[in-house]
């Protein structure tokens, strides 16, 4: 499934509302199926903002985002959320988990949200692959930075979504884990998943089939 943005723009306004403190200029982007795509760029250049727009959680002021043939911002909030739940796996930047739930409960959330059965064995297998199986029943608040990162990755890829949007998936990870994550993303790309990742990591850049650069809200 192809993911594309056409002429999307967005502004953040500061406290005073008058002048935007950040502007994502009219941006167009194609993330084709079967190619691992990466976006690099300085901190604050707008990479995460673009990713949020592509994920359907931040409505652009102008422009469209299409996933397959679906213009996702023409859907209602309910439809778009449901669509995201089933088809888009998002790995957010930084820590993201419900800290008081266990690792397993966190992974189960996307299933339980719409009453889908929780496939225990699948989850256990992938937790094992990412070295989290021992921590399965531990509350997420006790995890280290790297463990948090892997939890977010597992949560996003466990359902085998057709689109994966990863914001610095290798941040906080050691050499082995980085390799593990990147090769998994590569493998998923080759088996037909559309993967877009934001990264500062030179090694990750090496895995990518196409690389875009973001600079001050402009995608080059």
């Amino acid at each position: 499934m192809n993911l594309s943005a056409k002429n999307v723009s967005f502004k953040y306004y500061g406290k005073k509302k008058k002048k935007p403190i950040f502007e994502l200029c009219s941006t167009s982007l194609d993330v084709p199926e079967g190619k691992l795509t990466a976006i690099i760029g300085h901190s604050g250049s707008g990479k995460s903002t673009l990713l949020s727009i592509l994920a359907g959680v931040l409505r652009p002021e102008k422009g469209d985002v299409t996933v397959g043939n679906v213009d996702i911002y023409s859907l209602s909030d309910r439809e778009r959320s449901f669509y995201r739940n089933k088809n888009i796996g998002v790995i957010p930047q930084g820590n993201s988990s419900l800290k008081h739930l266990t690792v397993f409960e966190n992974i189960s959330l996307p299933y339980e949200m719409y009453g889908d059965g929780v496939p225990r064995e699948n989850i256990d297998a992938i937790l094992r692959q990412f070295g989290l199986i021992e921590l399965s029943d531990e509350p997420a608040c006790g995890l280290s930075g790297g463990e948090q990162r892997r939890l977010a990755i597992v949560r996003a890829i466990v359902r085998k979504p057709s689109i994966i949007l990863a914001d610095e998936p290798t941040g906080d990870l050691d050499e082995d884990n980085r390799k593990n994550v990147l090769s998994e993303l590569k493998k998923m790309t080759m088996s037909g998943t559309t993967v877009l990742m934001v990264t500062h990591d030179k090694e990750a850049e090496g895995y990518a089939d196409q690389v875009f650069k973001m600079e001050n809200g402009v995608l080059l």
Partner: protein
Amino acid sequence: MRFEIKLAIKNIKGHWGRSAALFALAALLACSIFGGSIIIRSLQNGLRSYEKRLGADIIVIPEEAAGEGTFESILLQGIPGYFYMDMDVLEAIRGLEGVKAASPQFYLASASSGCCDTLVQIIGFDPDSDFSVKPWILENYGKMINDGDVIVGSDIRIPENKSFRFYNVECRAVAKLGKTGTGLDSAIYADMNTIQRMMESADKIGFDYFESVEPENAVSSVLIDVTDGYEVRDVARKINLEFEGVRAISSKDMVSGISEGLSGVSKVVGGLIVFIWGLSIAVLIVSFNMIVNERVGELALLRIIGGTKKMLAGVLLWETIIISVGGGLLGNALASLVIISFSDILRDALKVPLLLTNGWIIGIVFLFSVLVSTIVCVLTSVIAANRITSKDTALILREGL
């Protein structure tokens, strides 16, 4: 179970410190209106039953008893007491214009020494002329009591053999009266013959109650029923002018004296409720705002994995509902316990009649106060949640959230 409810329960358990604080606030909100309204209602109820049990338009007592407050402490606090005046007053009052009926009562405090079983107030009445006690006896016993029988107030425990001994006079307890919430609940009623025997026997074994009056010529009070068409206050005033050494009090005045005192109590209770509510609502608004801010990351995550805005609001809403209903129920249960177990102490402290309202009114007020406090909690949390969930940008996951 719905996802929102399940997650709400997990969130409550996961943040038990925060939940407990909100739980306590909800409990405070509910129990303040519940407790406040039950107390106010019970005071009104007590006052009504007090007026009914007095059963006379005017009560005439010796001047000293009025001045020293002995009479009030017998009626309101159940502190046994006695006072006497000369029987002549009774006949004289009967002759007055506007007096339809007049009946004497005799107050005797039992002694705590060996001649008496318990320390109580004994009230004697004259079955022939009585109009104030008889209706209660008929209601609770079905017929008039005989010589040697006593009827006891609701707070008095009747012993297994049903017999009491006062000043060596054996009495049989035949029935118990309903609760009034006044000192009369710890009184014992007997007819004139019985009480005369007690008085004489007391006199014989050396209790010197009757200072200046002869035991057979003594009465404690005269209860007056005023003829229709006459002003109760006028009749009372006339008695006060014409008779030396006695005081005629209209029962309306007695009750209104208390109810003036009560309106002060009601104001204090009302003010306290307003204060507690103002404070709790302020604290709730601040805490919900803080909690929602602290939880932006959590909400943003739910959004990212496919939660709708409605779902996020639902999770927050269910958390608030569960906490405020739970807190309200617990708060009210505690308040009920406190009120029920301390109502007598409260009555004595306030020196007013206090009669708990009946069960189903308590039940309705109980549920109503839980409902009101839940609505308030939900409204304050909705305001806070709305600020977050209505804006996309507020829910963007950023490092550090």
